[in-house]
């Protein structure tokens, strides 16, 4: 609806940007940006390359890297619930909308369990990860078995990124960016030294809850491009790459985002040119960037580049 309103209000702008992207791509000898589906894939990819590593930075340094994995499997259950609901009621909304709600609830549940236990227990995490995935598979079997659209959520498929999901994912990205802009200082403090943050009277559990909810939003945003199984990679690998060569926390954020965006762009181009699985290509590029970072780190004896 919003996207309709926007394209009604500024149809000229959307067309102009789309034409510019097409011409820009041709300068590099490719016409892939002339296809609307590739434009949408690039847009969503750039969103993920930005917010994935930003949120991931806080997760990695809190040793919560695997929460992304748990949440992406929960998002899968959410998609299944959405498709099931659509099949039963004839509802035509995006299953990603349902996935967003389900994943946010799961994130808060994980946080609650972690607070009760005093740690991010891998048992609770494993129960939620597999339990949610199991629910997803059962619901899918009820509503008619694995279809193309299910497979595309599992492994990622850029062709299925609709205009509606670009709008939804753009909105989620903007929300994550705004919240991070306002609270990154507090999140850093809580990440770095939780006890001292409590002493300074920060509401630590509020920030913890906020972090997992933001993670849930990023996971949903990344689902269509990367697929359930590979989403966590975008939260972790660019961050690990950046941390190897960063001279400060600020530069580690910049480098993580750079690594994320390079992985997304190079991955998308390679997967288009050679007809490769998109999510897998992006993550393999990220791993390559990480390896380069590690090599640089050991060659320079941990001396930072930025």
């Amino acid at each position, binding site marked *: 609806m919003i996207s309709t309103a926007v394209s009604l209000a500024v149809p000229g702008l959307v067309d102009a940007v789309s034409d510019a992207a097409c011409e820009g791509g041709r300068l590099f000898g490719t016409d892939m940006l002339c296809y609307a589906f590739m434009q949408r894939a690039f847009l969503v990819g750039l969103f993920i390359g930005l917010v994935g590593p930003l949120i991931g930075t806080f997760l990695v*340094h809190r040793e919560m890297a695997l929460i992304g994995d748990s949440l992406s499997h929960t998002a899968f259950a959410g998609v299944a619930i959405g498709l099931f609901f659509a099949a039963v009621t004839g509802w035509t909304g995006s299953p990603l909308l349902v996935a967003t709600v389900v994943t946010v609830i799961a994130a808060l549940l994980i946080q609650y369990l972690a607070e009760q236990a005093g740690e991010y227990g891998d048992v609770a995490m494993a129960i939620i990860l597999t339990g949610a995935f199991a629910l997803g598979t059962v619901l899918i079997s009820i509503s008619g078995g694995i279809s193309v659209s299910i497979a595309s959520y599992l492994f990622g498929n850029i062709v299925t990124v609709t205009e509606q999901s670009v709008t939804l994912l753009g909105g989620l990205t903007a929300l994550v960016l705004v919240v991070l802009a*306002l*609270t990154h*200082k*507090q999140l*850093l*403090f809580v*990440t*770095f*030294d939780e*006890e*001292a943050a*409590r*002493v*300074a*009277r*920060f509401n630590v559990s509020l920030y913890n809850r906020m972090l997992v909810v933001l993670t849930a939003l990023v996971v949903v945003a990344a689902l269509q491009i990367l697929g359930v199984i590979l989403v966590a990679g975008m939260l972790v690998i660019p961050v690990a790459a950046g*941390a190897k060569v*960063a*001279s*400060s*926390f*600020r*530069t*580690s954020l910049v480098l993580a985002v750079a690594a994320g965006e390079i992985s997304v762009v190079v991955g998308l181009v390679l997967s288009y040119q050679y007809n490769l699985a998109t999510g897998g290509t992006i993550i393999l590029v990220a791993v390559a960037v990480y390896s380069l970072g590690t090599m640089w780190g050991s060659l320079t004896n*941990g001396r*930072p580049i930025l």
Partner: protein
Amino acid sequence: MTAVIEVEDATFSFGDVPAVENVSLTVEEGDFVGIVGPNGSGKSTLIKLMLGLLEPDQGRVLLYGVPASRFQDGSRLGYVSQYASRVDRRIPVTVREVVEMGRFARAGIFPLRDEDHDAVEEAMQQVRIADLADRKLTHLSGGQRQRVFVARALASKADLLFLDEPAIGVDVESRERFYGLLRELNEQGITIVLIEHDIGVVTSYANLVACINRQLYCHTSPEDFLAGDFLEQAYGTDQEMLRHEHHLDHHHE
């Protein structure tokens, strides 16, 4: 003199295991209190009660006259944890970025302002780490890291500083200099509560010694502490080891 911390008959248990029993003590403005006691004697629990991180099961703990857990002005409290000198996490923060955290509570959701940056630079100079400002924390020695955490407390303009065995894993020379720094800060009016297993340090720097082994066995001046038989009362069979350390440290001086 105004009471900064008032612990009144406080008891706290982890489940069925009592950690602190019927402890009463008062810390006044400008005090330098050394808390001593054997491992597992409730020292850290007592500090957490004072900081309001834990609430007593019985009795009460007041910070500036308010129940500690409801005391809201976090910028007045500095805290250097037991792990400060040995942070082994690989989070790539610089010294300046850590000290800046001391200003976060004041800044809220807004960016740091000029006065915040001034306070950060001033705090780093005060503990003599200004030359390390852009170094990564992971590249510092244990002694340098302690100073960073103290600078963070100073940047927030804390007037009450808690340190929980800050000198673990730090070489003797850096330790001496670090305690000299604490004395300097204390002379400038900052109230200090220090947990320290090294009785030599406590008796030479603190003006009050509190010995605890679940219960409070003494709350007295270093002179009376050394003259009395509090160690025997508080430590029981552990005392040999502690006496030994005490002598060793005087040997170093």
